[in-house]
């Protein structure tokens, strides 16, 4: 099986939504498909990509299959993007301060 790039997986909005849904609770393929305004086949294609990226696993309970999030794998993504995001978060809160000062100065004049 071709190993896919994890970042390719999360670049897609539907796949990000799937991850958010199964992060909250394990879901059956049917329950997942109902959340989206697209064909069941389209949803299972996205699930396939996420499986190939090793981001989700499945467990069998009785006759039902449930998909769940692989937390360890998500942390890889988390670290990488979060670090970068945090840089910008810090920058922008600094910029909020700068703008607040500029506004004050403007009001004084």
């Amino acid at each position, binding site marked *: 099986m071709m190993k896919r790039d994890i970042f390719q997986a999360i670049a897609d*909005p539907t796949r990000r*939504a799937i991850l958010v849904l199964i992060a909250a609770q394990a879901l059956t393929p049917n329950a997942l498909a109902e959340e989206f305004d697209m064909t069941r086949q389209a949803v299972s294609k996205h699930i396939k990509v996420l499986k190939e990226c090793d981001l989700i696993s499945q467990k069998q309970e009785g006759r039902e299959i449930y998909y769940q999030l692989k937390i360890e794998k998500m942390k890889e993504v988390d670290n990488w993007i979060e670090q970068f995001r945090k840089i910008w978060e810090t920058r922008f809160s600094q910029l909020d301060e700068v703008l607040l000062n500029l506004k004050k100065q403007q009001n004084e004049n």
Partner: protein
Amino acid sequence: MKTDLLFDFIVDKEKKTVHIKREFDAPIDLVWDAFTRPELLDQWTAPAPFQSKTKYMNFEPGGKRFYAMVSPDGKEGWIIQKYTSISPKTQFKLHNAFADKDENPEPTGSDWDYNFSEQNGITTVYITIFNESLERMERMIELGFKEGFTATLKNLEELLKKNQNEY
């Protein structure tokens, strides 16, 4: 201060592009100044505890900003930004490259596109960063952040939720 300001941050590794959108509780004139005047840029572009130090800046098409990100232990990482187009208070573009202290740029860089718009006193800035190589993109992220942050799954969930809300 308004606390519910929008902040979207999306990394598209496949397209080597980062999309950043943020609202600011200030009119467009002030926000534009904060992005285009060196003395203001130096106050916020380096994430603390780093500091930004602009050696010179000519904000005009073809002009440059040559500046350093200075780490807490005094190490300087130099960057050259060349302005490729400017539409006042609407948009500007630049080419960004890491450099040495003598202004010699690295061969590959990134293209930045900044867009500004104001509605009801809130200014939205939308930035896209396109990297010429994936390696460079990863370096851009690593730069200055070797110490790293302790990220949690919860943060990611929030990020994912935020991204999801857009669609």
